[in-house]
Structure formats: structure tokens, C-alpha cells
């Protein structure tokens, strides 16, 4: 009975504390997202100070108090035999949840690395993305975050999550494969563009000039990952009495304001994932990285040997899609 009560207490605390487990990510998202286009955080400096200030700020908000008090409350080791740190996989921790939080999360680390990389000249950084398929839970939050971030219209989805079912009932399991643009180092999609509207930047990101693209869709044909999309000019509110405000808002891609209403670019253009360049330039990680609830997506500078992404791509678990094509993708999967 006592053990049951203890377990119930633990589960309650875990459930209450889970949203804050990714406090680093939340911090990065809330703290920075409020100042898009500006130069960064509301909490500059030491991450530990950020966390403390964040918790104070969050406490001030109605509704967050209970969860945050739970996090800071002293918890005996016997109350919490195991804690799932979603950013690192299952680990046995004989310490309170608050201690886990005291350790900088991967998101905070990547955020620091991003700031470090952005201080370098563009040709000295090489962005890579690492996706740990063991941690991906197939929630498609990254897909939705990307759509929301880039204000994507129907039929344009930069980061679909492919679902695969393995085996037959009852020996069946599922796995998921998020598929952003591979940002190939030798991209087949760029040389085929007849007007030079798409190219690989010095930092390795493959971009499109919406004001030059003629919409021939040859790059869509050339991409071996089907990672390019055509904007056919549709809206989610088509067939309804009025357009919704979000459809009239400007997409922030490439650090500019793109308004689709009235048929302006990028309507009729090819579109693709660009690692949220506009966020990188504002010191923020790509939306899919900060939103990943499983902590499965990593992002960083391959040229920085101390970066988390650099560490991860040395893993023997690393593979890339269609490596035999020689396109040298910069999206790595941990399998």
C-alpha cells in the first residue's frame, strides 16, 4: 500500500514536472522567441542564472506555480527511483528532479554552441542536424512547429515524419524517420535550376531566392529525397468565408517578410527547409529542434569539434539517407 502510494506520488510529480524537464528548451523558446529579429535572450549570461530567472518568471504566471513548486520541492531518493531524462534516454538517477534540471540540457548547450558559431565568419561554420531515431516518438511536433514557424500553406511541409511499421502482429514495432531537407554538400537540386535561383550557402545551407525562382519545378524532380515543395497558392481557409489572420501574416523565411496574399512569392515557387536561417541569425535553434519533445533532434556546427553535433556524428550508430548517391547529406541519423 505504501509502495503504491509512493509510486503514485512519484508519477504525479513526474507528470507535473515533465513540462519543465525541457526547461532549457522552453527557456530558449520563450526567452528568445519574444524578440525575433532582435539580438537574443531576455536572460543573457550564465545558463544557471537563466534557469533561476525563468523559474521565477514562470512562477509569476498563473497555473505554472504547482508544477514548478513540485520541481523545486525536496524529494527523497526513495520517492524517485528512476527519472526519464528525455534528452538523454533512460538513466537511473538517485537525485531529485531539480538536480537533473541543474545540469545544462542539450538544448542549452546547443544554444551556446549556436551563439559561438554565429560569431564566426559564415564560411567557417558548417551546420549539421543529427536525429536520434531511438528517441523519436513520432509525435510530429517538429512537423507542426515547422509549419507554424514558416507559415507553410497546404501541401508544403518541410519536415514530414515517415512512419514505418516493422514486423507482423504480435511481433510488431514502429519507428519514425523525420525527413527535413538533407542540405546536401553536393546537392543535385541546385545545378539544374535554369536561373540560378537556388544555391548552397557558404555555411552549407541550400537556399532559394523566391524573387528569382520561375517555378519550373525542375529542382523538385532532381531532389532524391523529395525534400522540395511547390507552393500552389492554396490556403487552409480556401472554401471558407474569410482568410484567417495567420494566412495574411508574413513568413519570416530567409530573414525577410514574405506575404502570400495577392499571389506574391513564394506562391508559385519551389520551397524547402532552410534550417530556419531566420532563427539562426536571431541566435535561436531551428524550430524543429526546440520543439522536439523527445529531444531527438540536435543541431550544431560541424566545424566546432566541441559541439554536441560534432560529437554525435562520430557515433558508430550514424547513417545518412541514400549515401550511395554521393550527395553528402548534412542530416545524420542515429539508428
Amino acid at each position, binding site marked *: 500500500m505504501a509502495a503504491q502510494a509512493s509510486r503514485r506520488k512519484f508519477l504525479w510529480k513526474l507528470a507535473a514536472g515533465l513540462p519543465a524537464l525541457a526547461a532549457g528548451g522552453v527557456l530558449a523558446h520563450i526567452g528568445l522567441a519574444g524578440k525575433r529579429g532582435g539580438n537574443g535572450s531576455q536572460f543573457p549570461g550564465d545558463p544557471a542564472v537563466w534557469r533561476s530567472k525563468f523559474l521565477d518568471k514562470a512562477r509569476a504566471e498563473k497555473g505554472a506555480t504547482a508544477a514548478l513548486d513540485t520541481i523545486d520541492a525536496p524529494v527523497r531518493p526513495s520517492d524517485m527511483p528512476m527519472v526519464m531524462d528525455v534528452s538523454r534516454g533512460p538513466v537511473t538517477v538517485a537525485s531529485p528532479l531539480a538536480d537533473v534540471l541543474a545540469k545544462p540540457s542539450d538544448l542549452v548547450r546547443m544554444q551556446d554552441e549556436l551563439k559561438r558559431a554565429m560569431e564566426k565568419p559564415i564560411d567557417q561554420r558548417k551546420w549539421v542536424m543529427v536525429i536520434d531515431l531511438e528517441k523519436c516518438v513520432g509525435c510530429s511536433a517538429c512537423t507542426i512547429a515547422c509549419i507554424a514557424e514558416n507559415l507553410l500553406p497546404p501541401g508544403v511541409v518541410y519536415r514530414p515524419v515517415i512512419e514505418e511499421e516493422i514486423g507482423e502482429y504480435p511481433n510488431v514495432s514502429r519507428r519514425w524517420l523525420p525527413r527535413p531537407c538533407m542540405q546536401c554538400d553536393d546537392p543535385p537540386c541546385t545545378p539544374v535550376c535554369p536561373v*540560378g535561383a537556388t544555391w548552397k550557402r557558404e555555411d552549407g545551407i541550400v537556399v532559394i531566392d523566391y524573387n528569382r525562382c520561375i517555378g519550373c519545378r525542375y529542382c523538385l524532380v532532381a531532389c532524391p529525397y*523529395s525534400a522540395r515543395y511547390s507552393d500552389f497558392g492554396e490556403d487552409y481557409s480556401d472554401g471558407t468565408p474569410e482568410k484567417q489572420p495567420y494566412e495574411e501574416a508574413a513568413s519570416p523565411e530567409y530573414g525577410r517578410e514574405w506575404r502570400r496574399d495577392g499571389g506574391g512569392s513564394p506562391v508559385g515557387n519551389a520551397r524547402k527547409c532552410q534550417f530556419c536561417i531566420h532563427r539562426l541569425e536571431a541566435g535561436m535553434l531551428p524550430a524543429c529542434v526546440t520543439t522536439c519533445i523527445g529531444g531527438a533532434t540536435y543541431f550544431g556546427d560541424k566545424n566546432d569539434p566541441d559541439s554536441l553535433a560534432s560529437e554525435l556524428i562520430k557515433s558508430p550508430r550514424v547513417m545518412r539517407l541514400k549515401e550511395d548517391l554521393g550527395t553528402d547529406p548534412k542530416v545524420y541519423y542515429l539508428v
Partner: protein
Amino acid sequence: MGQWQANADKLLRPTALVVPLGLLWAAALGAGAFGVFQLVSEGHKVTENGSYIPWGLWVALYIFFVEAAAGMHLASALGTVYRWSPFVRILKLNLFLSFIFGIGGLSLIALDLGRPERLWELYLRPSLSSPMNWMAWIYAVFMLLQASQLVWEFWADRRRARLGPLSPAEEEHVLTVRRNLGVIGVPTAVALSSGVGFLVGNPSSQLFFQVGLYPLHFLATAVASGAAVLALVTSLFLARRDEEMRNLAIIAGRLALAGVTFEALFLFFDYFVSSYGGVPRLTASVEAVMTGSYAWSFWLFQVAIGMVIPFLILINPRLSSRANWIGAAGFMIVVGFVVVRINAVLPAFVAPQLEGLQFAFVDSRLSYDYFPSAIEWLVAIFIGAIVLGLFYLGYRLLPLVSEPKEVL
């Protein structure tokens, strides 16, 4: 048989069909104009293409038109370079047909662009690494060349009409310019037809397209489709003029027969090798053509109507010498080759690049199923009607065919 032949002759005589065909043409033009209006006002929303099948009916028809134009231009070289009498007589008709087919194809591809107003970027800010940009320049040269050839021929005709027979030196000058333009035209037409093959066959991501011989294949099919159009036009409009024109219809029929035979062989080897390669994604594309969603168009239009029946007609010594049968065979080859182009473009996209991608995000634009929308058909009909109308106007109003005595 004799009575039947007489009836067929009567039916196919252009004058007997002018009114009903004219009404049909006007209806097609009107309906097509509605489609174009919808396209202009709504944009590409009205198409059924998506991001996984980015090219559709218009691209397939564009390939048909420009390949046929290249084929007809190559045939015109028999008159300009080799001075073969029947081809000299129809030189202007040949060039005119090639020119308006070029207009048809280029109009379709311009309408297919997401931002057609930026077409000028192809020339002002070219990217020379792109086969599509090469094609833009080749089209420009091709169309200008044909326009120049037509202008030159009409100028020479007008000069003869105004001044009477030209002096031998002047006639020699006319012939020299004609031959020089023709000599430039041959590699241009070869570059155009095989260039389209290279453009389509280039992306290594599309296994179905990636056949090394695609440029050569397109060149051969250009000759076949161009010859088929010539066979149709000469047998319908010219074969009754005189013996030489009747023979021209037979020659055009034989050229088309050669093209169809080569196309059949190429298709067989292409699909045979692809099927036995064992790469599932490639096999899936071939199976989609032969047994899947495109099977009806493949077996009925491409194989039966486009190849087998015309082949049987054109190898039959008795039938292949009759204008009506040659015309019918030419018509069937034209219809078949339109479907050939559709079957050359669409199946490549049937198999997903990544298995399961089609289920990853559900949207009508993210599908591997495609059938052209009504507006796509209407726009295609509009372009077809325009080409047909231009041909008829040109044929009626311009001196496109020379009399035997005029030939030099």
C-alpha cells in the same frame, strides 16, 4: 473495297468537313479559353500536380509538340540541304508546321511555370549549369532560325512574283542562303530533340528517367512524330494534287514507320532491362505503366493505336500506298505519341523517393496519384486548337506549298 475507298476519300476531303470541324474547333477554343481564364485568375490551384508529381499533362504535351517540331524541322533539311524535290515543294509548309508546333509547346511550358512573368530571367540571368537553361537558348535559336527561313522563302517568292524569274546568280544566292540556314537547322533540331531527352533523363534521382540513351531515344521519336504529322497533313491536304505529293505522303509514312519501329524496339529494351534490373523502385515505375494505373493508356493508346495498328498499316504494301490509310496511320501515331510522352513523364514519379513518404503528411498535393484536372485538359485543348487554327489559317492564306514548276 473500291466503293469504300471512294467513300473514305469523300469523308476525308477537307472541304466536306469544314463546317462541322469548324464548329468543333470553335467549341474547343471557347472551352479552352475558359480553362486559360481559370488558370490566369486562380493560378496553379486549378492543376492536379503536386510536389511529388511535379510535372503532368502540360509537360508531356510540351515534349510532344517540341519533339514533333524538331522532327519536322529535320525533315525540312531533306529540302533545304539535300534539295529533294517533294520536300522542297513543301518546305514552307514544313517550316510553318514546325514553327507553330514550337509555339504550341513553348506556350504550354510557359503556362506550366509557377511564375511565368519571370521567363526573362532565363536569358537575363542564365545559369549555364542547367540543361533547362540550355534548352531555353536552343528554343530561342530554333524559333528565330525557322522564322528567318520562312521570311527568306517568302521574300524570295515575293521577289519572283514582282520581278519575274530571278537571274541565275540571284537564284543561286537564294539557294545558298536556304542551304546555309538548313545546315544550321539540322544540329539545332538535333540539339533540341535530344536536349529535351537529356533534360528529362538527367536527374539521377529519377531512376525511371535515368536511361543513358534517352537523348537518342528522343531524337528518334522526334523523327517519328514529326514524320507522322507530315504524313497526316500531306495525305489529307496534298496527296490529291499530283503524283509527287502522293509519293510524298508515302515517303512520310515510311519515315513514320521507321520511327515507330525504332520507338517500339527502344521501349521494349528499356522496359525489359528496367524490369529485370530488380531495383524495386524502378520496377514499380515500369509495372505502373504496364499493369498499374497507367496500363489502359499504355496498351490501348501507346501500343495498340500508336504502334501496332499503324505499323500493320504501313508495312502492308497495298495500304501504305494509299493516302487515306497513310493519313489514318499518321493520325494514330500522333495520338499514340501524345500518350508516349505522358507515359514517359508520369510513371517516373509513381514510386516514392522514400518509402512511406506518401503517408507521412496527408495532403492532395503530397500524393503519388495524378490525373489531370478538367482545367488542365481545357488548357491543353486550347493550345491544341490554337495550333490547329494557325495551321488552317496558314494553309489557306499563305502560299505554303509550291507548284512543281516553281521548285528549285
